[in-house]
């Protein structure tokens, strides 16, 4: 049986490939365009990598633009130290306090716990907006959109008061608590994403479950939520990256602890040390900062390619 075509641009017709060469030639324009843009996106990252390994002499050497002549780990090692990546255990402090001294631990807690929570709490609200009826639905939808457009820069003062009176300042709880309510960093956007996804799922499966006597809660948790896999992957990835990169809110809520993102902004050269350059150190720090996200993306991006065929919806 012929496979159904994927939604794509008509210009780049798929399938029907006779010989491998024929198929490649047919896709040549696609490859050319994608490669051109891929190079534009890759260039800063390659620069970042090459810069991280450059010694001070390589930076001024024009022939060592991409590949350093004398590669060195000095910048990377210094950036790793300066960014407080690893926890340094002090004996007179508790375990928690010691862990909080590591920017990596704080970053991981501020990133993954809220992201995982948002995947579920935002789905619940999104499902309600997509499929259920409740009073004042349209007004609440407008409020949902409104809450997304407010830049935190404009309300930072009352916002900090709220968090301070809740006692969650200086702890990853300041991101976990809002996430529990489907709020938090870009929470409204995730609710909207779920809403649009749930709207697109065919109603038959839901109806079948209702006929079997399942409650709304059961239908949501056992039928609809598992079906929304593309939405869950999308929300998780975005939430993860945005929490990881956040500097404004962490700057407001974290006064005694820090994240990798804030450490990256603050990195400086040690005084009276001329063996390194600030450009190389900054790039080394950026590389350490980006690496975890890239690795996780490489593992999760497979789920994006999974089509709905495999989720079992056939009309």
């Amino acid at each position, binding site marked *: 049986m012929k496979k159904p*075509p*994927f939604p*794509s*641009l*008509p210009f780049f017709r*798929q*399938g029907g490939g006779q010989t491998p060469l024929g198929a490649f030639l047919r*896709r040549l324009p*696609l*490859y050319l365009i994608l490669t051109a843009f*891929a190079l*534009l*996106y890759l260039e*800063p*990252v390659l620069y*970042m990598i090459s810069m991280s390994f450059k010694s001070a002499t390589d930076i001024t050497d024009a022939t060592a633009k991409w590949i350093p002549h004398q590669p060195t780990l000095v910048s990377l090692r210094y950036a790793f130290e300066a960014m407080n990546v690893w926890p340094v255990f002090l004996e007179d402090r508790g375990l928690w306090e010691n862990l909080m001294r590591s920017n990596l631990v704080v970053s991981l807690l501020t990133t993954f716990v809220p992201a995982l929570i948002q995947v579920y*709490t935002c789905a*619940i*609200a999104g*499902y309600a*907006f997509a499929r*259920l*009826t*409740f009073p004042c639905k349209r007004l609440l939808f407008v409020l949902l*959109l*409104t*809450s997304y*457009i*407010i*830049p935190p*820069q*404009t*309300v930072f*003062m*009352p916002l900090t*008061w709220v968090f301070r009176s809740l006692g969650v300042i200086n702890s990853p709880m300041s991101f976990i608590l*809002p996430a*529990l*309510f*489907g*709020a*938090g960093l870009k929470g409204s956007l995730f*609710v909207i994403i779920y809403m*649009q996804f749930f709207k*697109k799922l065919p109603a038959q499966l839901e109806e079948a479950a209702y006929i079997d006597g399942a409650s*709304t809660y059961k239908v949501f948790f056992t039928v609809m939520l598992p079906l929304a896999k593309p939405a869950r992957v*999308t929300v998780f990835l*975005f939430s993860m*990256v*945005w929490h990881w*990169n956040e*500097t404004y809110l962490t700057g407001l809520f974290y006064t005694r602890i820090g994240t990798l993102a804030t450490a990256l902004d603050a990195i400086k050269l040690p005084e009276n040390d001329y063996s390194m350059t600030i*450009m190389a150190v900054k790039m080394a720090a950026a590389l350490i900062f980006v690496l975890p*996200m890239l690795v996780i993306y490489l593992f999760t*991006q497979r789920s994006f*390619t*999974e089509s*709905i065929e495999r989720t079992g*919806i*056939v009309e």
Partner: protein
Amino acid sequence: MRKSWNYEKKQKLVGFSFVVPWIIGFGVFTAFPLFYCLYMALNKVQFVTDHLEMSPLGFANFHKALYEDAEIPNKLMQTFQQSLLIVPLIVVFALIMALMLNSKFPGRAFYRAVFFLPVMLTSGNLIATLTSQGQGSISVLQSGTAAALVAGIGGSLGETLKVVLDNFLVILWYSGVQMLLLIAGMQSINPSTYEAARIDGAGQWEILWTITLPGLMPFLFICVIYTIVDQFTASFNPILEVISHHSVNISTGYGYASAIAWLYFLVILLILGIVILIFRKSLGLTVQRKEKKA
């Protein structure tokens, strides 16, 4: 009759239980700070050692922002025009790229990984670090030859190309999230619809216009909303700079900054209103209204 009414009421209650957590979160983390901000906008806010002192001003702060400070209405207008121009460009670029990335070809995993880079690099301060070292820009496009080439085309096509060229970097780097959203959205279109269309003899263009694009409408809506907010809340936005400047400025104070912030919300709300109007069909808002009347 009575039973069905009860059922309906019960359904509403169940539905409500799904949104209650969100409503609480909205109240505490959004509505309260927002209205407190409005309250401060109507006052003169001063820091007195350990607390804030408010003295009611009425609408003086708003009046000042709109009529006395020439900078504010100007910058609001500027942001408005800029977004009208750049938002469609970003969304169309993301759509074309997403359609390309979604077709099946060897090596697409690699390309998808690469196209995630803008999401990773632009959401924080990383892009600032990179651009400060001369990365992420395209020297060819900024040279005189490219500009001269476009100028030679002339007409409305030339004008459009010039706009694209001028904003190319922004379009390039701020369309990553939209691409991923659209790719994920394409997974939600039922493949059997395509098969049926093919059997009916629909061409590739017809399939694009009649199945793919309508199916993507809900996701295009998210993309447009996201792009608007992203452009408006980006740290390089001139209005936010003004707000941040005034919120620490003692002579004007946080009250004045709050007033500008509220004017700013109103402008974004206006744009959002236009967007909702355009996408009302895919949001199901008009359908609902018709059902109610019937």
